[in-house]
């Protein structure tokens, strides 16, 4: 494997002294209520990492139950008391664990932790701006996220437990305390936390869009933007247009829960008691939820796609293949993301004709997705690839995106989906294509931009171990779930031993559990690497360690607030002039030469 870090000839920039802050700042204004987009990015990242550990731990706990339903683990009772009576995970606890695992990973880690981190960090740096359009709103965005985090964390300690009706919080389960103990108070915490979270996303999103459209430096036309920025732009558009719809659904649900309205509830009898609600429609909630819920999948996936495009091009020392096609497919995915939500609802009694339209629109997403995969592979093709941990994770992303994308074609067909709905097949599909793939994109981004964030490198050896164990582990965990799902094993079952037909794979379940514990341990190793390297990692001595073209590598080693010491650099070319005219790379700031060939 090639040495990841080398000093590239012709980096062309003398190493500047550390860019210090432009004026004196107190500790509080520099690290806590900072308005510097780079600090806010780190705040999002570190909060996201803490949530990832919590959310990951939840999955290890419920995997223990799924792998070893007959065994008791007294240590669980020590930690969780009545929730794990006799060392066995209780049903309510199990449902709370899967609900919070989904909520935390989808929203707090892969939305806030991923696009919160990289949109904040990369947008001003790569478009050539001193900061976001509104640094103040940007700071508010983080603190709303923090507030959302505190409320969600607090909900874990309520006596009746946190929300446990699934991350999709379908009523009536989520609306009635009689239905599940998590719906007594935990769900109110969940809804209020999510309302704060949505405000955070919106404040962030409108800032990202404005900064990209209005704050680009001289010469940075839209088609010279790196694909990271394009991906983050479409992500923000998706968020700004779809999160408010979830907010409206959440508000209506709050009314149903606390003020006796009947938006989603109708004709319900609980233990012989007839509830007064009439005229509500539970399906209406699903429409409102999935109108966000589906774009949310792309809110998670697009930033990873953008970073992977950038990292693969930089590290294969080749221009990205088909820039305009990449851009077009990002655009197509964004449009289609809004038109496919009902494919989550094929078994709700949806009109089959309507269903077939959603099947068609869903399958159409395969076209831009395939274009992207093709372009990533052709970017790598015959490249002079440097297998850094970031490159490996980016390649891992492409692999997972293919594997998970192919099963999407199965599930997008209503005829097959009706059979596979609510089985482990679905769990396998969305974990591979959305969860793990985006996580890989996030890891790739962290390994790649860590030197710019903290002025030090992550440890490479730990990085390689991290990659290989996670890559092999992810396939070992989720691949067998496809077979389980095809064999009819449902999701969400606490203990399958009571059903002969669901009890075919106990050994497989044990294997998945063991692997997930190993993979989780390796993530802890990554977290150690992350925090250790912030303080003790090898120092970056070259402004442009990867020999990349984009503007963030023209800033000082440790840029202060304002990013560039002098003038903001002017841009003269696109971001992907690698291996052109015999030169390894040509930064965007370099003027086009007289005899230069076209790209």
């Amino acid at each position, binding site marked *: 494997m090639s040495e990841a870090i080398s000093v590239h000839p012709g980096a062309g920039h003398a190493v500047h002294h550390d860019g210090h802050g432009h004026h004196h700042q107190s500790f509080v204004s520099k690290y806590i209520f900072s308005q510097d987009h780079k600090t806010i990015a780190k705040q999002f990242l570190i909060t996201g990492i803490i949530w990832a550990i919590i959310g990951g731990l939840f999955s290890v706990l419920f995997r223990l139950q799924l792998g070893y339903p007959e065994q008791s683990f007294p240590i669980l009772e020590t930690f969780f008391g009545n929730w794990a009576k006799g060392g066995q995970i209780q049903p309510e606890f199990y449902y709370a664990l899967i609900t919070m695992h989904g909520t935390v990973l989808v929203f707090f880690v892969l939305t806030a932790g991923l696009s919160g981190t990289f949109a904040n960090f990369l947008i001003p740096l790569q478009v050539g701006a001193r900061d976001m359009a509104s*640094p103040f709103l940007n700071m508010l965005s983080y603190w709303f996220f923090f507030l959302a985090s505190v409320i969600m964390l607090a909900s874990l300690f309520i006596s009746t437990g946190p929300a446990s009706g699934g991350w999709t919080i379908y009523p009536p389960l989520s609306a009635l305390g009689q239905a599940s103990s998590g719906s007594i108070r935990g769900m109110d915490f969940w809804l209020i936390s999510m309302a704060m979270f949505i405000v955070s996303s919106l404040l962030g999103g409108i800032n990202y869009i404005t900064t990209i459209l209005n704050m680009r430096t001289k010469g940075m036309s839209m088609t010279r933007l790196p694909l990271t920025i394009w991906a983050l732009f479409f992500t923000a558009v998706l968020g700004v247009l779809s999160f408010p719809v979830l907010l409206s659904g959440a508000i209506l649900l709050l009314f149903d829960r606390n003020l006796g309205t009947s938006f989603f509830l109708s004709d319900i009898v609980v233990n012989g008691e007839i509830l007064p609600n009439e005229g509500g429609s539970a399906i209406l909630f699903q429409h409102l939820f999935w109108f966000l819920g589906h774009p949310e999948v792309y809110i998670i996936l697009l930033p990873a796609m953008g970073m992977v495009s950038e990292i693969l091009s930089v590290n294969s020392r080749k221009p990205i293949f088909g820039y305009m096609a990449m851009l077009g497919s990002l655009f197509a995915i964004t449009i289609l993301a809004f038109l496919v939500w009902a494919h989550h609802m094929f078994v709700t009694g949806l009109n089959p004709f309507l269903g077939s339209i959603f099947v068609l629109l869903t399958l159409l997403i395969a076209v831009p997705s395939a274009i992207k995969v093709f372009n990533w592979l052709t970017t790598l093709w015959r490249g002079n690839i440097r297998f850094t941990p970031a490159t490996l994770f980016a390649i891992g992303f492409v692999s997972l995106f293919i594997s998970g994308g192919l099963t999407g074609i199965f599930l997008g067909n209503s005829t097959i989906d009706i059979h596979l709905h609510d089985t482990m097949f679905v769990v396998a599909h969305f974990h591979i294509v959305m969860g793990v793939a985006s996580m890989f994109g996030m890891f790739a981004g962290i390994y790649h931009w860590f030197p710019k964030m903290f002025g030090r490198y992550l440890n490479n050896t730990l990085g390689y171990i991290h990659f290989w164990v996670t890559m092999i582990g992810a396939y070992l965990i989720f691949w067998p779930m496809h077979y389980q799902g095809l064999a009819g094993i449902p999701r969400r079952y606490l203990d399958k031993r009571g059903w002969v037909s669901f009890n075919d794979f106990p050994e497989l379940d044990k294997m998945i559990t063991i692997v997930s514990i190993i993979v989780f341990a390796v993530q802890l190793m990554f977290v150690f690497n992350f925090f250790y390297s912030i303080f003790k990692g090898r120092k970056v001595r070259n402004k442009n360690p990867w020999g990349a073209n984009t503007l963030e590598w023209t800033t000082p080693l440790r840029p202060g607030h304002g990013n560039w010491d002098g003038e903001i650099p002017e841009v003269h070319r696109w971001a992907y002039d690698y291996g052109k005219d015999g030169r390894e790379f040509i930064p965007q700031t370099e003027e086009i030469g007289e005899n230069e060939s076209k790209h």
Partner: protein
Amino acid sequence: MVSDLKIEENYKNSPSGDRGKMHPHKFTMWVAIGSIIMMFAGLTSAFIVKSNQTNWITVELPKAFWISTAIIIASSLTIQMALRSFKQREMGKYRSLIGFTLILGVAFVVFQWFGFEALWSQQITFKGAGAGQFLYVIFGLHAIHVIGGIVTLLIMFIKAFIGKTKLYSAVPVEVVAVYWHFVDLLWIYLLLFFLIIGG
């Protein structure tokens, strides 16, 4: 903290700045408006879906809502005049017009409340099904957006008296005016929506 001057520098440097396009803060407001529109689109489309069900109860809008409509339209005029006097450096006129808009904004919210009370007294409550429940939520959320505008106007009103700035940037006033016209138009949309589909 990066001062506004730095933002200005960046903006003037940018290709979009060169072409004399919109100020970033104003643009931010337009994007935010797009986002708010989506929330009300979600709510009103939920209303349409549910209004097709049987046992749906319609409501007749109380008179208070017509008065508040007149008030908010008037306030749109006053804020536009305030913006013009700010641009012409007529600060005395600007102060009184902003103050007037503020009062009209508060009056709008008060009349919305009267409207709610009138409905409640007709036994249109949170119980049962029908347009009433949606009306409380949708009009209530709109009123919260107006209150947000009122708070901003209040800050601008105070600033207009204590502000010693020599920099006459009309951008903040323009941003608030855009928002205020938006909540006005949003209200007219909601009113027409309930008249045509809910009534």
